């Protein structure tokens, strides 16, 4: 068969398949037994999906309000300084606003990146490392930001 077949499909690169070296096989989807299958991770994926929608709606208000106050209203960006930040964080309202924005934006972004990693990283090891890096960075940023908001000292020199 070799001469005719190989000329019909043009020049051949790569190794030849045989019984010991079969063509790559795509793993079949999860195998299921039993009548009432329990999902492996509970409802985490649904919670994550819902969180993205709800936090997105809240973030639109928080972020646009934040941008307006910081960059547009009352003199724009030139008014921002240590005194301005100290003045805002003196009020619990703005503390809560910024805290909420920090947590929601970080978790929203981290969850988005988690799905991107799930969708694009093909090897289990790559996923593990990328997600580890992502979670570490997220936790660090959230904790540091929270610490700053609560322990901010306007009299610092």
């Amino acid at each position, binding site marked *: 068969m070799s001469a005719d077949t190989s000329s019909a499909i043009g020049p051949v690169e*790569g190794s030849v398949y045989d019984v010991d070296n079969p063509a790559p096989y795509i793993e*079949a989807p999860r195998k299921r037994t039993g009548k009432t299958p329990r999902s492996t991770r509970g409802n985490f994926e649904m919670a994550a999906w819902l969180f993205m929608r709800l936090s997105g709606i809240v973030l639109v208000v928080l972020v646009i309000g934040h941008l307006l106050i910081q960059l547009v209203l009352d003199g724009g960006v030139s008014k921002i300084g240590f005194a301005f930040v100290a003045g805002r964080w003196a009020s619990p309202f703005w503390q809560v606003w910024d805290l909420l924005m920090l947590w929601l934006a970080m978790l929203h972004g981290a969850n988005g990146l988690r799905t991107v990693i799930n969708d694009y990283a093909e090897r289990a090891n790559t996923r593990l490392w990328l997600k580890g890096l992502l979670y570490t960075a997220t936790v660090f940023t959230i904790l540091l930001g929270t610490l700053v908001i609560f322990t901010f000292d306007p009299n610092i020199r």
Partner: protein
Amino acid sequence: MATPVMDKAEAVAKSQASPYITVTFRIRRFNPEVSDAAVWEDFQIEIDPKERVLDGLHKIKWDVDGTLTFRRSCAHGICGSDAMRINGKNRLACKTLIKDINPEKPITVEAIKGLTVLKDLVVDMEPFFQAYRDVMPFLVTKGNEPTRERLQSAEDRERFDDTTKCILCAACTSSCPVFWNDGQYFGPAAIVNAHRFIFDSRDEAGEQRLEILNDKDGVWRCRTTFNCTDACPRGIEVTKAIQEVKRALITRRF
């Protein structure tokens, strides 16, 4: 404007001219007995542009190169055997006319993505059908069998009418970028067929199917890229069906 006589003469000349044009088919060939590398091969054939891509493949297989391998059964858009990637888009070769896909340029034909290619345009459909079986695509009821038909109102039937049209060709699932990644996602076709029973008023296992699709590889992996809706040769609103399953998962429980 020309005279009527000349128009007639032109028309006669046109009708006598050959309807055939030369079309280049650029086909992704793969033969595991020869090589693990797939190669593009060009075939130039004479074909009427009103014929279908499947007719072109037949012409090549029957007259040019008998080793070309592809699936087709009914050849009329019902059996769903000949879904393939034609000019970069998943379509049924038997429902795609040559004239509709610009025959001036080479027509690329390759196997659908995300499933193991066995030879040329034939893929291993087993992961696809496994996902289909996993959603229990059959009527489940409790109690005694009725002595008459299970009656259903026209409105109740209309609720899932769109998803009854699926022919399991895998054009949607193999166009889904989430399915391309690791093939563990249930895929649009399985969800469409679950939708067909979840929203059937006669069926009583909707809750069970919803729980299956609540899996981490279930509906929540859908990114609503609409590739499936674009690919469906039956015009099923696939993404909408997936979203309805998501909504049912949330609203039926809370």
